[in-house]
């Protein structure tokens, strides 16, 4: 073996050692660098997470306290440190909407919607934003998507609330038919919760469905027998529907129950009490409520006397207040009515009324017409005249 060959061999060996050591050194450097980076990264991540948490909480509080602009800034910060935190995303979108930044909020929610098109909350927020933009079709579609969407927590309650909100919106838009449909679906799925029944009744009433509304009120106080507000609402509605018997009973009950829990329902001295008095008086005045014919005749005669007084007072009032053409215009119908009174006097004795149904109808018609005409000529009546006018109108409508 020559000297050169030996040197080359030695050099090769040294080169292998060199490379081996170099790789070991590289490995050591890589390991140290990795450990240092990992330590820094953990500290860095923890700090970021804390910033996200603090900012997110601040945003949540600001939104709850009605400071959406501050909430937006805080939530944006939170999201820049925890971009995938869904609760912050939803809160931010909500805050944007509440801050009047409709376009941004819509964009944000649309984007969230693209990720989760079946999310009930996102669809609800989109519906509200569409409402703000007066895009009824979009709003209704989004409400429906929200109702059929997925919800975290109690989905049944969320879906019902959204359905009621949709019904409110439809009522607001005068779409009473679809609103009633939504409400009836809600009614059919509603659990026995008196407050819910009452709320459903209120909405049905606003949607023009008095009969179903009354059923809900009845359901409400059936579920909670001391529910003064439900009695009061039912009493009012019954009064409005001409069912003065039930009106009196429920209003009485409302006042009685609310006396035990002041502030819970109608005030005894307020409107409810007046309605109760009116109900009682109407029951006394209404000939249709008479149990016997003599009683009926008595009521008709009593009503006739009240109407006659009203006519006389009205003629006098019209005669003194108007002159010339005006007087002629107002007194003319009154004179014609007075003539009818004179013509009917022969048939309006108690005996005649006891014998003849046609006479009963004639006198009752005259009473109704008198209250109606005097209300037009002399202004809205009060007291028994007002109640008679109410009875007159009900007779016309039913």
């Amino acid at each position, binding site marked *: 073996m020559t000297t050169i060959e030996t040197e080359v061999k030695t050099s090769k060996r040294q080169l292998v050692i060199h490379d081996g050591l170099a*790789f070991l050194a*590289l490995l050591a450097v890589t390991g140290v660098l990795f450990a240092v980076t990992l330590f820094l990264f953990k500290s860095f991540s923890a700090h970021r997470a804390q910033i996200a948490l603090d900012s997110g909480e601040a945003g949540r509080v600001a939104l709850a306290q009605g400071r959406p602009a501050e909430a937006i800034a805080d939530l944006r910060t939170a999201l820049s440190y925890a971009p995938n935190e869904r609760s912050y995303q939803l809160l931010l979108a909500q805050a944007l909407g509440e801050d009047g930044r409709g*376009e941004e909020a819509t964009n944000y929610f649309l984007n969230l919607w693209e990720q989760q098109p079946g999310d009930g909350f996102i669809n609800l927020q989109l519906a509200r934003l569409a409402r703000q933009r007066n895009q009824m079709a979009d709003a209704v579609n989004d409400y429906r998507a929200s109702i059929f969407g997925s919800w975290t927590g109690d989905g049944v309650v969320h879906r019902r609330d959204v359905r009621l909100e949709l019904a409110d919106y439809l009522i607001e838009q005068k779409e009473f038919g679809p609103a009633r449909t939504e409400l009836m679906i809600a009614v059919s799925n509603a659990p026995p919760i008196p407050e819910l029944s009452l709320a459903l009744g209120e909405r049905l009433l606003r949607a023009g469905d008095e009969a179903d509304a009354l059923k809900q009120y009845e359901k409400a106080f059936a579920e909670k027998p001391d529910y003064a507000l439900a009695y009061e609402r039912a009493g009012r509605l019954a009064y409005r529907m001409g069912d003065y018997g039930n009106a009196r009973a429920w209003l009485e009950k409302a006042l009685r129950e609310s006396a035990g829990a002041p502030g819970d329902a109608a005030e005894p001295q307020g409107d409810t009490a007046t309605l109760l008095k009116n109900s009682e008086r109407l029951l006394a005045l209404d000939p249709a409520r008479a149990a016997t014919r003599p009683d009926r005749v008595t009521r008709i005669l009593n009503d006739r006397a009240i109407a006659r007084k009203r006519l006389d007072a009205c003629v006098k009032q019209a005669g003194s207040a108007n002159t010339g053409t005006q007087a002629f215009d107002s007194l003319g119908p009154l004179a014609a009515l007075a003539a009818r009174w004179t013509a009917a006097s022969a048939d309006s004795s108690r005996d005649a009324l006891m014998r003849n149904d046609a006479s009963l109808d004639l006198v009752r018609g005259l009473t109704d017409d008198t209250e109606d005409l005097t209300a037009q000529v002399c202004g809205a009546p009060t007291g028994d005249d007002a109640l008679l006018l109410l009875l007159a109108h009900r007779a016309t409508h039913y």
Partner: protein
Amino acid sequence: MEAATVIEENVAPVIKEAGQSPAEIAPAREERLFLLLSIFIGVISGLLVVSFRMAIDWLSVLLLGPSPAPRQPRLVFVPALAGIAIALLTRYVFPMVRGSGVNQTKAALYISNGYISIRTVIGKFLLSALAIGSGHSLGPEDPSLQIGAGVASLISRKMGLSREKLRIFAPVGAAAGLAAAFNAPISAILFVIEEVIGQWSAGVLGSIVLAAVASVVVARSFWGSEPMFRIPTITALDSRELLAYAVLGLVGGVASLVFAKSLGYLRPRLRAMPAWSQLLQPCLAGLLVGGIGYFGLPQVMGAGYEAMDQAMHGQFAFKILILLAIFKIVATTLSFSSGTPGGMFAPTLFIGAMLGAAIGSFEKHYIHDLTGSTGSYALVGMGVLFAAFLRAPLTSVFMVLEVSGNYSVILPVILANTIAYLISRVLQPVPIFELFTHQDGLYLPSMEEQREEKADLHFEDALGPIGVPVFKGSESLVDARKSVTEAFENSDATAALVQCRDAAWYAATRKELEAIFAAMTEIQDTKQTLEDSLGPDRTPIMFPDQPLASALPYFRRWPLLPISNRAMRGALEGVLSQADVIRRYQGM
């Protein structure tokens, strides 16, 4: 690296004493080390890039606060003060850290044999982190690319590799750095090939891939699999939306043009100013960029990834998106032209994302039938600006595909990118990185030009008719002598073609043939054919579609080259002479 230094100091002299270089002692050593070192380069680059991003985020929180918002005074004074520090450090401590890092890496590759100093790597890391963290409108990707290249340069130097390998390692490290910064290995590999090396080279591709994948694995072990921003849901494409994407391509092309023109105008003017004023330029740029943030658009400060994420998730209104795109162009032009170290990738992606989201948002609000997501537009917008401004069309397409992980955007990406790229090419013929090198007095190879040159001339472009005598190789020498003598009497040709067996050809000079005939004997001529007397060598079989330049080495041996038909064995399309090739290259 201390251990490596010790080894370098102790072992290398012994090797040198043997009178031979390591490459000579162990020829296969470098090849063996190459792939293993690539993995180390990838891992270390990945770790450094993770640290670099952390440094940026830490500095941002420390200097600008966790939630930068308009009307915060520090938005103005922090970038300005950081600008002063950056200017002083750049001038007196780290003079090589100016610029983005892409051109510096190319310069290292083409001028200084892949050498990037450790000081440059440290300076790039620190000053870029300070610049971006303090709110200068620049990005971390290009510095990451240079940091990776620097790591590769350092490791390969310490391993005592040859000059050739040192040069190759720079792009390997660059790919690793960029891959970790982007969290997208394919895009990084393509960018380095498209913009730094300029060509596909089998020798280096394996190493680049290994390093890029290793660095991305490291980066993902820290940051997770998502890139710098969350990828939005990509909805199925409605073909009518292609029109909107075409508009995006148009708008992106124009925006990239404005951006490039602004940089091309301001940068040389600021660099031509007196030296003392250059110390103030980063400060002034910081003041102006901070002013933009102070008066309402803090999103334009820094790299802007959060804003990109928000744009992609539809969190900005149309007008804000347009304003952000415009002011990002302004802010980046100021920051970059002032010599503040930092990259152009993130601002480019930012502008693209804003423009894309603006078009997506517009479409969503005014054309209800179309349901394309804003995020898809923002994503395509990024690719559009990448293609048009950085002039890396292939990378731009793959970047969007890789980042989105969704193949359904391919059509819009190609359409929009092509439109933007063409607009940019027509109206701004010199790519931006090349423009910067020219402004710096360097003339690095233009990758765009190289790409086009590659598709240049082929044999068919210089092919001439067969104007020389053609002989049959199967003729006996006596017959052949007659044919040759007659042919050359009627022609001034100096060469001839001999058709041999197996569809092969032999291009012979006249002198060569005359020498054969002069040496022939009477016994020979009855038995020996012309073909036999030419020996075993045959002219290589070549076809018209081969690159013209590849013909040149053959003219040392052959007077002309017969060009064969690919369909008919042995049939010729024409012949090629050295004069024909040179004439073609001279454009005659």
